[in-house]
């Protein structure tokens, strides 16, 4: 993978990088550094240095803690579920089948459709007088107000899985197709069963793919705000009040201190997480040779 150096072309590189870096610095790096400062003072205009007081206040804030717990819980449940379902789907599709391409397109459709376009359908399904309750009533089950109770958490989970399974499926499918088929043939000759082949060949050689799927799933799990917001507005049921709602309401009230300290906390958590994941991945890749 690594190439021989062309030359030391720092000057050329800086010309090519100039537009990107100028914009990146102006819209991300510099304001982020300013934000770091805001999170340490008591007011954005002529504030005085208060150390970590804003962070202490943020961590002591019950609403923030509730939102952070919800986000963590949602990510912890949705990411493994998403990975499992998309792996199963990819394995189903990883064979010659009639309409295979059609099935693959069907899995990708939710990915391309804007959330707002299907919100009406979700509302129709999960309203108190919605279709789902209608079906349940036919079996004599009492109706649930899906969006206004703790059940909303699972509704959002379903909507998230519906949208995101296709993306991971594509990644897993590419990973599966890169495993040489003679590995399986050799294993069959040695008398390995289907389960053994899955554990010792498929899952092992999918490890690099799995790491990227894992990272992308975490990133995408944060985007579920779109669904929750469009389904339930700025103040949804408390079971789906996520960090992103909290942040958005801080934008609305122009609370710079809470906003910047919350952004910093989230950024630190993500950087640490990504760093650890890449470390683990490198170690496992090495042991695979």
């Amino acid at each position, binding site marked *: 993978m690594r190439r021989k150096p062309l030359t030391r072309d720092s000057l050329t590189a800086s010309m090519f990088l100039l537009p990107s870096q100028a914009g990146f610095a102006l819209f991300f790096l510099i304001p982020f550094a300013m934000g770091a400062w805001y999170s340490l003072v008591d007011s954005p205009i002529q504030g005085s240095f208060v150390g970590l007081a804003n962070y202490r206040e943020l961590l002591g804030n019950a609403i923030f803690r509730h939102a952070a717990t919800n986000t963590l819980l949602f990510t912890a449940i949705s990411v493994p579920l998403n990975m499992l379902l998309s792996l199963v789907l990819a394995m189903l599709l990883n064979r010659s089948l009639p309409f295979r391409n059609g099935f693959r397109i069907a899995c990708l459709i939710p990915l391309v459709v804007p959330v707002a376009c299907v919100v009406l359908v979700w509302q129709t399904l999960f*309203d108190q007088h919605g279709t789902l309750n209608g079906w349940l009533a036919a079996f004599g089950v009492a109706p649930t107000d899906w969006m206004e109770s703790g059940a909303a958490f699972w509704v959002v989970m379903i909507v998230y899985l519906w949208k995101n399974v296709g993306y991971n499926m594509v990644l897993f499918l590419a990973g599966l197709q890169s495993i040489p088929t003679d590995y399986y043939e050799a294993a069959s000759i040695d008398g390995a069963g289907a389960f053994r082949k899955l554990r010792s060949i498929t899952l092992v050689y999918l490890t690099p793919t799995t790491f990227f799927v894992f990272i992308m799933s975490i990133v995408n799990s944060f985007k579920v705000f779109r669904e929750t917001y469009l389904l339930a507005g700025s103040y949804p049921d408390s079971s789906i009040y996520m960090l992103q709602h909290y942040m958005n309401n801080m934008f609305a009230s122009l609370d710079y201190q809470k906003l910047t300290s919350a952004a910093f906390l*989230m950024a630190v958590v993500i950087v640490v997480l990504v760093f650890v994941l890449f470390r683990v991945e490198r170690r496992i890749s090495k042991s695979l040779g």
Partner: protein
Amino acid sequence: MKKVIFVALLTAIAALFIFPLALTVTNSFMSEGEITANYAALTGGDDTIADAGISYVKLKWIPELVTLSQYYSVLIQKPQFLFLFWNSALLTLPIIAGQIAVASLAAYAFSQLRFRGREPLFFLYIVTMLMPYQVTLVPNFIIADRLGLMGSYASIIFPGIFGAFGVFLLRQFMLTVPYSYIEAARADGAGHLYIFTRIVLPMCSSGLAALAILLFIDNWNMVEQPLVFLSDPHKQPLSVYLSAIGEGERGLAFAASTLYMLPLVLVALYAERYLVEGIQLTGIKG
């Protein structure tokens, strides 16, 4: 036999994926009267429903009478939808064009040139790319506030153009350009600008297409940025406003949704190869 079971299973799964779209599209051809009658249970409120004896919405797939009246309303009677549609285009197109231009230049440097600090700088881009919007929106918000861009499209378009995703994706793609091509061009005395425009870009055309498609998908679905930056409802893109369409205009919303998703569904059908390629590139380590 086994194949039949797989096909049946996959058909059921595909139906689950497709059904919200199918319902939206078929319902968009119903008259407002039919829609109102159909969805009465949702809008009626608790008491009236108990009186009328209808409690739950039944999904209805086939219009009693196929009509284009909703489309007539959306496209001709109520031009505000067209304005919001246009807003989406005004936000999305500059981001796609701008990010492709800026990111392809940067990706060339990251993939083909050697310079000091290349790896740490690239890591910085990756980290920004992985951040949730709610984190990157904070610096965007601070700078928009300082530059007086709040409420304008520029406050969304500029951070969009300089998003790190394009740099990441195109670098992945450009790493696949055989080194010998560039070496040969260098030996012939070609400059980097020439190599970039005449060799690398043409070879990466499917990567550029993949990036354009993925950016189109993400930005056409924009929700977070308009909520923070645009207070004027007339400036909102349709991706935010669609969900705010009032009761009694449900049929209209179905038609508007259908129109709004149409370009993306066409992309999925006709440019699936690039879409798949783009997604796969995000999963390859460089």
